[in-house]
């Protein structure tokens, strides 16, 4: 009812600008249950199906002498492995985390790309939960790595009371470090990704809403000129969003790797 009202209102009084409701769409299936599905979750499910189908088919058809598509996929996988994981952690330590970082990178990338795919028009990472779940995975991994490699006590001691600092500083430093370890790391990962997707959608949808309003809905033909400018803006931001989709996936993957790596002792 609310959505319909907004639509009618928009058609009468101005461009249909994007709003918070774009990110809180109504439930359309299994309403009221824990398995309720709204538009974003539907987008997410479709993106998941496509991602898995493509990757599984590519994996099953992978040959020793790769075709063009397989080479492209392999290039991405090798980029994640060599330029993200191994470069930060080294091969010995990093091997364990290659599948995790690969999963994170590809999932985030594909989910982000949904924001510029016609018909979906919203990133599958554009609710707080999805980035949060990714971040919690990273959070668990760096805690587990720290406890496994150093033991809980030494791990906390090293993190909360960094060596080489005069003790009065600990009064300020330790709470900050604790906050960093428990809240700031996962929340910064979450909010960086989430906010980027929100902003991207708002920019893009605003450009296209004005384009629609000026060129199609407006009676005054003179307004088609700014409408064209808005369309150009929409094109530019679409390209920009593709770039951001890859960039945010890269940033998330590289920060996760760095956080996990910090849980390991300096020298082995």
């Amino acid at each position, binding site marked *: 009812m609310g959505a319909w009202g*907004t639509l009618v209102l928009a058609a009468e009084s101005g461009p249909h600008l994007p709003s*918070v409701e774009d990110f809180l769409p109504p439930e359309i299936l299994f309403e009221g249950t824990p*398995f309720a599905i709204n538009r974003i979750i539907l987008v997410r499910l479709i993106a*998941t199906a496509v991602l898995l189908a493509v990757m599984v088919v590519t*994996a099953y058809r992978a*040959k020793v002498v790769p075709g063009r598509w397989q080479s492209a996929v392999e290039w991405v996988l090798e980029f994640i492995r060599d330029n993200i994981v191994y470069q930060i952690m080294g091969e010995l330590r990093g091997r364990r985390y290659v599948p995790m970082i690969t999963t994170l990178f590809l999932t985030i990338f594909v989910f982000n790309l949904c924001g510029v795919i016609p018909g979906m028009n919203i990133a599958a990472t554009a609710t707080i939960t999805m980035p949060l779940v990714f971040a919690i995975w990273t959070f668990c991994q760096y805690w587990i790595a720290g406890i496994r490699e150093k033991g809980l006590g030494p791990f906390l001691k090293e993190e909360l009371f960094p060596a080489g600092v005069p003790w009065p500083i600990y009064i300020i430093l330790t709470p900050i470090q604790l906050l960093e370890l428990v809240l700031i790391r996962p929340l910064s990962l979450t909010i960086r990704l*989430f906010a980027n997707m929100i902003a991207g959608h708002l920019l893009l949808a605003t450009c296209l809403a004005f384009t629609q309003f000026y060129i199609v809905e407006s009676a005054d033909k003179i307004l088609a000129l700014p409408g064209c400018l808005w369309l150009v803006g929409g094109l530019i931001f679409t390209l920009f969003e593709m770039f951001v989709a890859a960039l945010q996936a890269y940033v998330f993957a590289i920060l996760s790797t760095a956080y996990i790596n910090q849980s390991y002792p300096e020298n082995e």
Partner: protein
Amino acid sequence: MKPLAEGGIDLFLPETYDIVWSLVILVVIAAVFYKVVLPRFQKVFDERSARIEGGIAKAEQARKEADEAKRKYEERLSTARVEASKIRDDARAEASHIIADARSRAETDAAQITANAQRSIESQQQQALVSLKGEVGTLATALAGKILGAKLEDGAVQASMIDQMIADMDGDGDGK
């Protein structure tokens, strides 16, 4: 229309169903990636590097074989060269042998021919001598008879006279 600021806090409050679906999706994707996709790609990567290493090893093997073949070929070539020169030497030796043989045979033949010729010459000479002896005897007798005017009737005297004459002739021949 709801302004963007109003209800913005809702964006940061996860819905239960959202949590459920996010988890389900992540677990499914991670499971498929961990169990299927990445191991398969890893297998292909391993197989590829194995193939490349195998290819390098095979090339190395081929190079070794080629070297071996070349070495054998050269060995055989040098053996053949030695053999050829040996055959040539043998042939040369045989040829000189044959030539020497032929020469010696020719020399023998020549000597034989020479000897035969000598012998026939000697026998002819002997014959000539004998017939000459007879004729000269007769002629000399006739001549002497004519010169002396006497006819030597007695055969014995005649013979001794001739012998005497020949001996004189021989002695003249030897003295010269």
